[in-house]
């Protein structure tokens, strides 16, 4: 993006992360004036002001009349990240949605998630579409043993495209449900650049080596590491 202006870099960065965002550019009419970029995404608004000699100022929708920005930076990517952060923070994202019909599986997943400080909502497959439209989830765990409707698959596709959330599909075997950790295979779908892919793989490899060493996991003091 070497030939792009900072304001174009900002726009592209936001569009890449939030493809469904509406971006309005309000250019200056006087040479020394500010460029403004208004970003609307899922009903939330964030504003970016850019003065070529001073850099970016970014604010959420509740910025006061005549008030300065919440965040200032000279870097386009940082400005885009701040705007995206404001948009996402206005939605109260939830950590996880578990889509499964089997009660034992629901309970097991919920309890294990809670144990590692991940809150989850649980719905049956029939109610999943409505739940996905009601709230924003950063991850969705789907029991793929049951038949998934076209409507649910479409809703998952839509929400992940717009939110860049993580999908975790559980491909079950015939093992008993109380042995969840031994029979769940995981497929992760997440849009990342190559560096973040490397970081994600490193993180997973560390988990594979020593799950209890991962952050946020409650250690059992009686259990040796």
């Amino acid at each position, binding site marked *: 993006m070497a030939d792009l202006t900072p304001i174009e870099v900002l726009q592209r960065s936001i569009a890449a992360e939030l493809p469904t965002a509406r971006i309005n550019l309000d250019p200056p009419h006087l040479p020394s004036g500010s460029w403004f970029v208004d970003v609307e995404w899922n009903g939330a608004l964030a504003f970016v002001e850019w003065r070529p000699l001073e850099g970016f100022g970014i604010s959420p929708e509740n910025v006061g009349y005549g*008030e300065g920005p919440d965040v200032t930076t000279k870097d386009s990517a940082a400005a885009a990240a701040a705007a995206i952060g404001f948009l996402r923070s206005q939605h109260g994202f939830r950590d996880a949605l578990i889509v499964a019909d089997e009660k034992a599986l629901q309970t097991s997943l919920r309890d294990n998630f809670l144990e590692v400080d991940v809150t989850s909502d649980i719905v049956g497959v029939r109610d999943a579409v409505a739940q996905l439209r009601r709230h924003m989830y950063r991850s969705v765990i789907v029991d793929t043993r049951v038949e998934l409707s076209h409507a649910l698959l479409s809703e998952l596709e839509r929400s992940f495209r717009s939110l860049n959330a993580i999908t975790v599909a559980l491909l079950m075997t015939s093992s008993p449900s109380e042995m969840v950790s031994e029979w769940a295979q995981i497929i992760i779908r997440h849009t990342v650049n190559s560096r973040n892919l490397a970081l994600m793989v490193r993180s997973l490899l560390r988990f594979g080596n020593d799950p209890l060493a991962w952050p946020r996991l409650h250690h059992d003091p009686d259990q040796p590491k």
Partner: protein
Amino acid sequence: MVLTRSERFAIFLERLAAAEPTDSAEAAYNLVSSTLIAVEDEFSGTKFDPAQWKTDGRLYPPQLDNRRAVAGYPEVVRYRSLGHHTLIGSNGSIQIITIRGATELMKAGTDGRHVWQI
């Protein structure tokens, strides 16, 4: 006495609405600016210093170089700030709206006409 941002903005709107109407765009802009500066001097607890506008928490008037023409309304100019437009008519009318389009204040010029009526 130091008041919150929303309390100061409410006082600014009250004073602006109660002020004598103006008869030119320049007078209207000056009215907006002087009213906001006076409210902030009284209630923000922060000294007027435009160089610090990004970080001092004080509310500042629209910047002159953020003036824009309004398509189809040659007698109206628009001052853009982060979350608002301040529209000023050549007859001294004033309208402050949010970026979503909600009107915060609408004040006619001395001829009784509002921004979109000139």
